Structures are given as C-alpha cells and as structure tokens.
C-alpha cells in the first residue's frame, strides 16, 4: 500500500475512533439518561485543551508566541488522563448548577447558551486561550521515544486510539447493561416516578453527565494530539449537533447505534463529501454539507426516529419449564 494511502486510512481510523468515543459518551448522556447536552463539544474541547497545554510546556517557552495557562511537559499518558478528569470535573460543575428540574426545552436552551458563552469567552480571552488562533505545534505522545517513521507513527497512533475506544466501549457497556443503566433510562422516562421509588435523580443524572464528559474529554485529547493543534473554531455549537445527529441516526439509547452513527455521519458522510470538487464558490460545499446534515437528521427523525439500531430492552432467562401460559 502506498504511503499516502496509508496516511489517508490511518487518519480516517483515528477520526473514526475519536468520533465513536464521543458518540458513546453522548449516547450515555442523551440516549440513555435523556440529558440534551447541546454543549457537548465544550467538554471535548476542554479535554483537548488540557492535553495540549500539559504537553506544550510553559507558555513562555519557544519565544512565548502562544499564551495559555497551565503549561507543563507531562509524559504520556498523563495528559490524556488529565483530559478525562477535566472533562469529568467540568461536567460535574456544570451539572451541579444546571441539571435541575427544568422543562426539557429550557434545559436544552441552558446547555445551548453555555456552549455559546464558552465559544465567546475562549475566542476573546487571549491571555488564557490564545484567542482565535488557538494552539499549535502540540507534541505527540511518545514521538521522541519511539522514533518511528511517519507512517509507522500513524499506525501506532491508530493502535492507541483503538485501545482507548475499546476501553470506552467496555465502560459504557458495563453501565448501560447494568441495573444502573436501567435506572438511568427510568429517570429519563419519568423522573418523578423514579424519585417515588427511591432513586436520587440528581445524583444519577450527574453520574451520566460526568461519565459522558470524561469520555468527551479523552476523545478531545486524542484528537488534539493527533492533529497537533487546537483551534476554537473547531469546537463550535454545530459540531455538537453533528454528534447528536450521529447518535440519532445510529439509534439513541443503543451503544452499537452510537458506533454506527459515528461511522455514518461524521466519518462516512463528511469524508465522502470531501471528494466533491469545490464547485461554485469557495465555501459553497461546506454550506451544502450542513444543509445535508440538517436534512438528513430531519429525514431520520421522520422515517426512522429510533435509528438504525433502536434501543433494546433486556430479556431475562427463564429456568427451564417455567414458561407462563399465554391467555
């Protein structure tokens, strides 16, 4: 296989891994627990930023052309762990303030506004976040240690991403397949009834929110170190919507659905449209991409609202010979 082909495929696989992780996290928050986290991208961005600054070193280094907070030169995998922790901690703080008994649409609005505030603040607080330029030249994990060829390093990164994706899959599966997952779904369906049965609704929502946020943070770190850059322009509200669209298309409430949705929407669709030659004027194809994402979401909501893999209930094995008679 030619080197450029290998680069292309390994790129795609890393993006796929990142998007699968993000969708699994969002599915936990939205599909399973019913939280419309329209600010999801903020938590992914926070994880990405954390990994970036914890590997870039102090901001004054290299002539201080980028300014940010908390510079350090931490060894892999610490930046990634820190990213997950930051994603989770930020979710905890936001969740404490925001996850209360609020009408669904008001709840969604609060999250949307948080996303917009984050974007404005980050773009303008140049001292903290280097403004709209973002961060560049982020070192990659273990690069100097392994001394691989560029192509070799790509495949190494694919392996790392794959390992993390598996880890996230296992964690999410354990949660959703357990009584805890069932309780989260119950809280989603009727939180008042759940409370009347002894469930601490706020705490349960926080658990889902924080877990999803930690996963988002980790996925952000993986992405940021792969492309060696972090730019506020990549973490805007519409990106959250792409993930929502993916989860809905794949099947909200179903982990396999989240995986498939990630493969279909952010990866397959956006990849496929990369190869359409730029016609019309520059930017037209991008605008049309968004139109198609919007139409696709509407189409799925109309024709198959439960997605490719709808949410499933669990069936429990019966001891032999105890089939109930049907009336």
């Amino acid at each position, binding site marked *: 296989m030619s080197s450029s082909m290998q680069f292309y495929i390994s790129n795609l696989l890393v993006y796929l891994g990142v998007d699968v992780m993000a969708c699994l996290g969002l599915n936990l928050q939205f599909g399973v627990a019913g939280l419309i986290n329209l600010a999801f991208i903020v938590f992914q961005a926070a994880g990405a930023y954390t990994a970036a600054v914890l590997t870039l070193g102090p901001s004054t280094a290299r002539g201080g052309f980028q300014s940010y907070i908390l510079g350090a030169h931490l060894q892999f995998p610490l930046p990634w762990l820190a990213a997950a922790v930051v994603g989770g901690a930020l979710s905890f703080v936001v969740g404490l303030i925001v996850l209360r008994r609020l009408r669904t649409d008001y709840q969604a609005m609060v999250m949307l506004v948080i996303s917009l505030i984050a974007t404005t603040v980050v773009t303008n607080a140049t001292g903290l976040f280097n403004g709209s330029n973002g961060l560049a030249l982020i070192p990659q994990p273990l690069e100097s240690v392994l001394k691989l060829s560029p192509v070799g390093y790509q495949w190494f990164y694919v392996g790392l991403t794959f390992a993390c994706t598996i880890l996230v899959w296992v964690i999410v599966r354990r949660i959703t397949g357990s009584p805890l997952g069932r309780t989260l779904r*119950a809280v989603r369906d009727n939180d008042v009834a*759940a409370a009347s049965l*002894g469930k601490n609704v706020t705490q349960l929502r926080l658990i889902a929110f924080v877990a999803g946020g930690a996963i988002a943070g980790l996925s952000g770190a993986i992405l940021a170190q792969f492309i060696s850059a972090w730019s506020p322009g990549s973490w805007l509200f519409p990106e959250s919507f792409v993930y929502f669209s993916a989860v809905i298309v794949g099947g909200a409430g179903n982990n396999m659905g989240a995986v498939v949705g990630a493969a279909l929407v952010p990866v397959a669709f956006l990849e496929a449209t990369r190869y359409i030659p730029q016609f019309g004027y520059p930017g037209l194809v991008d605008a049309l991409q968004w139109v198609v994402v919007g139409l696709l979401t509407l189409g799925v909501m109309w024709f198959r609202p439960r997605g490719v893999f709808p949410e499933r209930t669990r069936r429990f094995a019966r001891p032999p010979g105890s089939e109930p008679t049907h009336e």
Partner: protein
Amino acid sequence: MSGEPLLSVRGLAKSFGGVEAVRDVSFDVAAGSITGLIGPNGAGKSSVLAIVSGFLAPTSGSVHFGGELVSGHSAYRLARLGLVRTFQLSSEFERLSVIENLLVAAPNQRGDRLRDVLAGRWRWRAEEEEAVARARELLARFEIPEKEDDLAGDLSGGQKRLLELARALMTEPKLLLLDEPMAGVNPALIRRIEAHLMALRDEGLTMLMVEHELGVVERLCDPVVVMAQGQVLSSGTMAELRANEEVLDAYLAG
C-alpha cells in the same frame, strides 16, 4: 397492632401565593390499616399527599413516619425509608419493558452503584437474579405474567394500573400512598384491584388512599378522613361519616 401510628401528621399547612391550600391538617394512619382520605375537589387532598410523600414542602407542620420526624425529606429519601406513593396519571417507564419497570424498583441493589457496575457483572448478577424472581412472582400475582417483555408504554390503561401497583410493591414499602388508584378504571378491574389491596392489608401492608369512588372507600377503608377547603372536617368509618351533617354539607356544597 401496636399503639403507635405508622404515619402521624400534625398541623400541616401549605399556601401557594396568597391561597391557603392546606390549613392545620392533622391525622394518623394506624399500622396495618387502609386509611381513606376523601373530600370534594379543591379540598387539598392532593397537596397533603404531595407533602407527605415528599414532593411538596409544607409551609408549616410536621410529619412523623415510624416515629421519626420526616418533614422536609425529599421524595426519594422517604421512599428509601419505606414510604412509597403511586400516581393518579399513569407513570410507567414507557420505554422499559414491564419486568424492567419492576426491576428498577428493587431496593438496595449493588448493580445500582457505579463502583460495582464498573467492576463487572459478577458483582451484581446474583442480586439481580433474585430481583427477577421476585418481579415474576409479583407479575403472576397480578395476573399479567405474559406481559413481562412487553414495553410498558404499550399496556392498556388497566394493565398500567396493575403494573404501577406491582412496581410500588417491589420496593417492599412499609406505607403505600395511593393517589386515586381507581380513577378511570373499569368496574370489573376495580373489584380485582380491591381484592389485591385487601390481600395486601391482610399481609400487613399499611395504606393511605386518596379516592373519589366512595363505594371503593366504603369497602376498603377504615378509618376515613374527610377534608374540605384545606381542613380536616372529621374522621371515622364511612357509616359514621354518612350520618355527619358537616360532611354532607361539604360534599353538596363543594
């Protein structure tokens, strides 16, 4: 039967804005009884129920449950203490199956704790299997065992009522608050539910029932507390209440 009432409400009051929905309400629920709470619309029964079950904070007054002061406890804490309520409008978890609805209610499950969940299935599997067996017994008791894997949202209205009752019982409650359990239920099913409730009472479950169908109240409840305009008018057996002038006036006027 022990002397101490299981539930004791004293001087309960609640105002919304300028309106006094509940004024100085006091009554007891004796252990092992089915106590009725009746009154015309606007009497404040739903507010009292909401306060006792932890869904509404009272403006003043106290609630004692099993001897302990519980006023101000939130609904989920009360449920964990054994005080569970059902709802007038069907409140099943519609995207969960019938048996999943019951399993959610199983108390003190290791599988509900994140730490045990992340450790792996082996930590909580046995407990869940016990809960499944118990849930199946309840479904059989309420004569809907074949509905086990159906989505709760697909059940008929009457079946949802039975499900809600079964679900509340999964929590192994000490006191069950029933909010108009017979509302909108057809007469044949009313009789069946009555039979279930009487059997439960005979097994020692205490219940407080808010209900409009006076026939049901007559057959099931002793004593019955009557409220009107936010206050307790009287209490006693239905026969006694029927002879009470004040009560009759309240019902005719309200």
